[in-house]
């Protein structure tokens, strides 16, 4: 029996639902690691270097959790999306790190559009490795692709509708693997929702639009996900009351891109850098005063 393990970190937040649909349609059983908890972070920290970013540490922790619960572990690699759209170098390296740290079989595909390595090709490769025939893979890919498209469209509409709300509106600028992670961003989101703030997420805009808009803030930026984030600030700069930057310590693209954005925008902003030792009480105080300030302006 082929059981695929999917670590809940980094790539999962971009392609997780897609993979689920794909494997469902192929009748492959999979296991997803649970939401990040203290135990997983500790596991990751033991494996990782001190200076690795918190997101990568947790990712390694997730792989460690899955180590003896499945036959294969899915660790892709994403390099670039053409036209000055590369990803963080951790995304380039994570497959090789995992390969060297763990002895499990690893399912891997590479997205490198400059060398014509697409998601479709990658998933075909994975399907073949799991002994499925071409026809089955084609069907599964189509099924997953259509579903994914619908889901993205729905997210766009929800996000755009939120911009019309009359509550306090805050744009959250962050990478989804930090934002929706139980230990990194979840507490912050919950706190804001509890205080009746309408949250707009930078990753839920149409990246075709936001990617181009980012040029208004930064001409030379070549990190795809940072570009999307900065573009979203430009997209809704007149409709929001504040921006909150959330990044994990020490994120490489964010350290420069967010710094530039903060220097250029004239919207009130709050910069939160989440460390593995940072406590939520400290963050809560900062959030509270930020909300107070925004309320005062309104």
């Amino acid at each position, binding site marked *: 029996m082929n059981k695929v393990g999917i670590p809940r970190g980094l790539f999962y937040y971009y392609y997780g639902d897609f993979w689920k649909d794909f494997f469902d349609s192929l009748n492959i059983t999979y296991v997803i690691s649970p939401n990040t908890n203290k135990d997983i972070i500790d596991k990751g920290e033991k494996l990782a270097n001190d200076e690795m970013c918190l997101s990568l540490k947790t990712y390694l922790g997730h792989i460690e959790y899955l180590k003896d619960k499945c036959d294969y572990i899915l660790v892709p690699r994403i390099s670039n999306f053409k036209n*000055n759209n590369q990803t963080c170098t951790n995304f*380039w*390296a994570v497959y*090789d790190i995992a*390969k060297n*740290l763990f002895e499990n079989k690893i399912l891997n595909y590479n997205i490198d559009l400059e060398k014509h390595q697409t998601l479709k090709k990658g998933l075909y490769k994975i399907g073949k490795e799991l002994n499925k025939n071409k026809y089955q893979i084609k069907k599964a890919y189509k099924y997953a692709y259509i579903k994914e498209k619908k889901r993205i469209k729905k997210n766009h509409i929800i996000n755009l509708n939120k911009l019309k709300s009359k509550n306090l509106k805050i744009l959250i600028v962050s990478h989804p693997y930090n934002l929706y992670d139980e230990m990194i961003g979840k507490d912050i989101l919950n706190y804001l929702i509890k205080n009746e703030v309408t949250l707009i997420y930078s990753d839920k805009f149409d990246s075709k639009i936001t990617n181009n808009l980012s040029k208004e803030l*930064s001409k030379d930026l*070549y990190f795809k996900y940072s570009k999307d984030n900065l573009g979203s600030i430009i997209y809704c700069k007149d409709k929001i009351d504040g921006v909150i930057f959330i990044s994990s310590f020490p*994120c490489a693209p964010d*350290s420069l891109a967010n710094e530039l954005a903060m220097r250029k925008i004239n919207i009130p902003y709050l910069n939160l850098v989440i460390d593995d030792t940072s406590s939520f009480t400290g963050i809560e105080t900062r959030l509270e005063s930020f909300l107070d300030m925004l309320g005062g302006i309104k």
Partner: protein
Amino acid sequence: MKIAFPQMGDYYVPANYLLSHIFPNVKVIKAPKITNKTVEIGTKYSPEFVCTPFKYTLGTMIECLEEKADILIQMGGGCRYGYYAEVQEKIIKDIGYECTIINLVTEGVTRFKRINKLLKIINPKYSKIKALYYSFITFKMVKYMDEIDNYIRENIGFEIKKGTFESLKKEMLIEFSHIKRYKELKQTYKKYLNKFHKIKIHKPDNRIKIGIIGELYTIMEPFSNYFLEKQLAKHHIEIKRFTNVHYLLFEKAKKTKKYKKYAKEYFKYNMGADASDNIARCKYLCENDYDGIIHIKSSFCTPEIGAMPIINKIASTYQKPVLFFSFDTTTSETGIKTRLEAFYDMLEMRKNK
């Protein structure tokens, strides 16, 4: 009009040579040597968790601006290095200086059309033929400098009269900066190569050999690695270093493929900047008779952090000692010295076994 550029090692000589010959009417400011004050200024204005070369280069840029530079030149790289220029420009303008920053390389890719466009900012009527000729000479100069540096590195620990290598190198650099034609350069190079070979050295057979690998800026700028190579030379150690400007400009594209084949059991993909090269180099050092490996990087250098677990694994399979240094602006020099001494003692004990 005055041009300046952040300095790195001894490479200010060729860079200065190139700029002053392409733009004879423009004054080139030689960036002051990096000191603690430079680092302090750089750290003050830098973002919190940016990698250390950002702080060093920003510091020198501000010091150059204090000397009334109008145009600053910055280079790029394969990681976030390529994005330095834009952020640094914004920071410098926020402080209140007026200047233009020219970024020659973005994403590690050099495009001649772009460079032409950028050079026109400095002088719209610059001569392209002259520029090509002098850049040819400059690149050759870099090559010769790197070759001589490699020789020095292997032998400086064993010189009989202390300081001969260093003073001869200084002499050579001064002569290099006054060269007019390519032929002259070649002759000078040969002359000095002979002189270097004639310096008396005492090389014992059981000497300790160390390979230095790591992140490119920290390796090439001696101040940022706290003069590591000098410290090692004091202990009579032969040093092997791979990264230099000639490698980055001309050899990297070819060598990367070779490295990939050579160390294919350890990595499959390029890991950004020099990380995957360093993994292959580590394997090379382990397979040849080097006694130890020193891996240096500036703190928060993401590609190298990714390479570190793999380097560790290689070293443990081959049973070779590795010393990791992560240099920050607040690293204490005594701490480094102590660790180096302990490493050196350990190597010697292994050798005598």
